[in-house]
Structures are given as structure tokens and as C-alpha cells.
């Protein structure tokens, strides 16, 4: 094993989606963010967790999302298909706020060692950003109110920063003990896992810092850490993450995203 990625029969996006799908526990509620998280939730429900209850900020509770999925689309009839209930945004935020949502899944542009994420802007001047993104969307509520947040990030060095340009949605804030609780955020919540295109992280219970716990099977821990500006903790034993299975790839490519607009092509 060279440490560098080898030839693959899957894309990095496919890898992230499959990894996320495997982490979703069945018979739990999952607040699904825009983009990749939507595809991960669909895949999970089709393959591993048929009885998860997906919830969306636009008011759908428990849909069995119909496919194919169209990029940038949320809230259409396919997204809302066979729901248990159709409600509204304030109801969904209330549902998360009052403790009913087990998981949240979000993407982001930047992350810091304590799992704080940026999806707002790059640059130092808020009024003249170098690069502007969408902003929080429902992400701030998801990261604040769901019990466990799963984050999905492309593994690029510039995305893993000691200090991010803008904290859009909260991780463990400054990492001090009970920093979230002291800020007023609900007790016992916070980032749970970070999924990247080559690795998986959790958060150390004592320090609340990101900790490498597994790598894609063709990647070494050293390679992972080299490709991050901040240095994460590294677990004593590192698991190896299996590549997407033929089943996962078939469903992704044939049912969910046949035009490969999101998942890309190898």
C-alpha cells in the first residue's frame, strides 16, 4: 500500500455517500441536509435501513424518496413520496429542538478541529467575501438541535483548518468542556462523525477534537493527516474502510443518479 490513492472503480463522491449510508442506523430519525446527504439517505433506506425516518426542513416526515434524484432539487414530489406526514419548516425545527431527531447529516466547505463548519464564505471581510456560499440553510438548526451530526467533506487540505473563516453551524465551539451547553445549545448534542473522501473521524470524548478512526483501504493514516491543515488526533487502532460494494454502486448508478450528475464518473 503506497499511501497514495490507487486506481478505483468508484468516485470519491460515491465513496462518501456509501460510507454515510452505512453509518445511518435503522429505525432512527435522520434530518437530511441538501445535496450529498439526500443521496446517502436514499441509499441507506434502499439497502441498509429500510425503516429510518427521514425528515426534511421543508416539512416531509418519513418519505420513501422516489428516484432518480435530480441535483439541486429538494421538496419535489419524489422527495416527499410516501411520507408519513407533510408539515412545515417551523414544525420540523420544533421536532428537532424537542429531541425527536437522532441524526443530522450535512455537507460543508470547511471544518475545524472541533467540528465547527463553514458553509457561508471564504475570506476575512464579511462584507467583501473572497468566495460566497449559500449560508446556513437549515444546517445551523441541524447541527444545533439533532442529537448526533454526521458531516460529509471532500478531503482537501484547505478544508481542514485550525480556524475556519466563518462558523456557520456549531461543532464543539472552542472545544472547552460543555462549551455547547454554556452557549445555550441543547445538552448532549454535537458532531458525531466526519466522513471524507478518504477517511472517517469521530470526536475524542475528553478533548472534543476530531480523531481519525478509519481510512479508505487504499490510504494510509499518514496520507490522511498530511492532507489536512490542522492535525487531528489519531485513534490507537485505525480501521480500514471498504470500498463501495457492487450493490451500492448499482443502486447509486442505476436507480438514484443514472445521469451521474452528482456521483460523477470514474
Amino acid at each position, binding site marked *: 500500500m503506497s499511501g497514495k490513492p490507487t486506481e478505483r472503480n468508484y468516485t470519491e463522491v460515491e465513496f462518501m455517500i456509501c460510507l454515510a449510508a452505512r453509518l445511518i442506523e435503522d429505525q432512527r430519525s435522520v434530518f437530511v441536509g441538501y445535496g450529498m446527504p439526500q443521496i446517502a439517505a436514499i441509499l441507506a433506506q434502499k439497502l441498509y435501513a429500510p425503516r429510518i425516518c427521514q425528515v426534511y426542513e421543508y416539512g416531509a416526515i418519513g418519505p420513501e424518496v422516489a428516484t432518480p434524484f435530480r441535483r439541486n*432539487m429538494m421538496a419535489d414530489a419524489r422527495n*416527499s413520496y410516501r411520507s408519513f406526514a407533510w408539515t412545515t419548516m417551523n414544525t420540523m*425545527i420544533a421536532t428537532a*429542538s424537542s429531541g425527536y431527531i437522532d441524526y443530522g447529516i450535512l455537507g460543508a466547505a470547511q471544518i475545524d478541529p472541533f467540528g465547527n463548519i463553514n458553509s457561508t464564505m471564504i475570506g476575512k471581510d464579511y462584507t467583501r467575501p473572497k468566495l*460566497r*456560499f449559500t449560508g446556513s440553510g437549515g444546517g*445551523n438548526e441541524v447541527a444545533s438541535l439533532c442529537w448526533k451530526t454526521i458531516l460529509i467533506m471532500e478531503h482537501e487540505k484547505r478544508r481542514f483548518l485550525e480556524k475556519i473563516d*466563518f462558523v456557520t453551524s456549531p461543532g464543539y465551539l472552542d472545544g472547552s468542556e460543555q462549551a*455547547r451547553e454554556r452557549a445555550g445549545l441543547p445538552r448532549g448534542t454535537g458532531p458525531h462523525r466526519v466522513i471524507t473522501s478518504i477517511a472517517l473521524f469521530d470526536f475524542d470524548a475528553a478533548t472534543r477534537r476530531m480523531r481519525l478512526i478509519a481510512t479508505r483501504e487504499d490510504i494510509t493514516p499518514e496520507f490522511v493527516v498530511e492532507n489536512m491543515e490542522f492535525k487531528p488526533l489519531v485513534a490507537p487502532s485505525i480501521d480500514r474502510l471498504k470500498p463501495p460494494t457492487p450493490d451500492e454502486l448499482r443502486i447509486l448508478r442505476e436507480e438514484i443518479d443514472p445521469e451521474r450528475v452528482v456521483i460523477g464518473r470514474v
Partner: protein
Amino acid sequence: MSGAGEVRLSDVDAAREWMRDNKSRAPVDKVMSEHEAVARFVHDGDYVSYDLSSMVRGPMSLEREIVRQRRKNLWLAAKFTLLDSTLLVAGGCVSKIDVGFAGLGRTLFSAIETGKVQVIDWSNGTLALRHLAGAMGVPFLPTRALLGTDTFKHSGAKVVEDPFTGKKVCLVPAIHPNVAIIHVNQCDMFGNARIFGPSISPVETAMASKSVIVSTEEIITTEEIKKNPGRTTLPYYLVSAVVVAPHGAHPGTVPGLYTYDSGHLDEFFSARDDATMKKYLDKYVYGVKSHDEYLALIGKEKLQSLRENEMIREGYSA
């Protein structure tokens, strides 16, 4: 502790008086053209709110009319948005955006990066909550989101101690938009409106807003409304104008009725520079005089195929 963001503060008592004096409880015929509705109810400098997004049951025909009438200096509530803010920014209508989800499109992000448009960051949830506060006639509502983040710092929210338990909690101020534009499935001439499917905050938005323009896929009778009051989303007195706009959400979808126009959306998204965007606007907004002309431009055949291609119907009727 207060966020630094500029707030379109509104006084709950002044808002109440507006609702009393300007949104009548008289059940009168409010049907008018989109030209008249926008001319009467959308003014330069207004705070504007819409429901859902350009991709799904969005008030696209009204947004195009706002661009066509060249409104200026609007302040948008982008609480769940996709093309909406981009379209209105491209049309030169917008000076400020309360973000939620800013939307998609290079045009929009460039306008923010160059300072042409000022943003104030919130979140989708806290913007929906600000509308709920307006709808409830209270000056603020509490939330346990925003806390601890830069989103809070740049918002206009405050952190206070809960007087019951001493815990910190975030307060967001009520918003009373000058005008809301909402696309619905069905509506009677008085403004009793039905939405089928999930949604963002149509009721809160209509209650909080000083004027409300509803565009509707079809007009139904008040008799029908009265036979099934459990299906009414907006009671008539919330609504200022009713505009008949079949396919009003095009190029987006109205779930259960027609699917989105994939090719048209791609055309919009591919307009990544001012020149291409101008071409888009010239063709689809300035180049037509009304929503009817717009539909003629899109073509009957295309519209029919969008209806046929919406495969899911269950749940989207009274």
C-alpha cells in the same frame, strides 16, 4: 449579547394597526392581473418574502413580474430559496438579503462578493421563526439554534438568560414583510387558498405580511372551500390579491401537478456571467409582457409534457 446584523425592525403595534386598516375582513373579489398586483403591492424598498423555492411551488410568475416592473432596493427573506434571489438580484431589484439559504447561481454570489448586494446571515429556521413571531403578533421568539456561531454574530438576534431556568437562549425579532408572494394550488376569488404538499411557512408568512399576493394554479368556488375547510391553508383576510397563474411555478414544479422543466433550469443555471444572464432575462422576462405571453413562449407542448411527466399524484388534491 446582540448580533451585529442590521434588522428590519418592526413594531408589533404598528403592524397590528396596519392589519386592521389595510387587510380587510370584507370578502371581496381580489382577482387581478399579475401586473396590477405587483404594481399595487410591491414597492421600491419593500421587504419581500416568498414561500418554498423557485424549484418547487415557487411564485415564479410574480418574481418575473417584479423584475419586469424593475423594482429596486428590495430586501429579501431568503428562507428557503434556490433561483429566486438570483433572479431578483440579476434583475437589479435587490439591495439586501436576509439569508437562510442564499440560493444558487454565480450571479448572486458575485453580487455579494462585490458588495452590490448586502447580506445578513441567519438560518432557514430562524427566518421561518421570525415570520412566526410576526404571525403571532409578538416581538420575538426564542430558539436554541444560532447560539455560539458566527451566524449569530452577523445576525440581528440576541442572547438572553431564560428567566425560568437561567439557561441561555437566543431571541429572534419578529418580521412583518411589506409583501409576501405565495403560489398555491387552488384559491377562491376572496383569497381562501389551498396548498397541497409540505411547505416552508405559508401561513406564518401570510399572517406576518402587510400585503399578500397569491398566485394560483386555478380558481375554485367559495362553495368548494366551505365544503372542506380542513383543506384551507390561508383564510381570505390574509390575502390582498389573487392572480390566476397556471404553470406559475415554471420552470419549477408544482408537486402532483407538473414536474420541473429540466432544460430550462439548466439554461438558467448555466448563466454564470452578466451577459448570459442578461440574455436570459431579455428572452424570458423583459421579452414578454405577461405570464400568458411567457407561457406562449415556453409552448403548449412543453407545458403539456411537464404535466404528463409528473408521475406522482397521490396526496395532492382535496
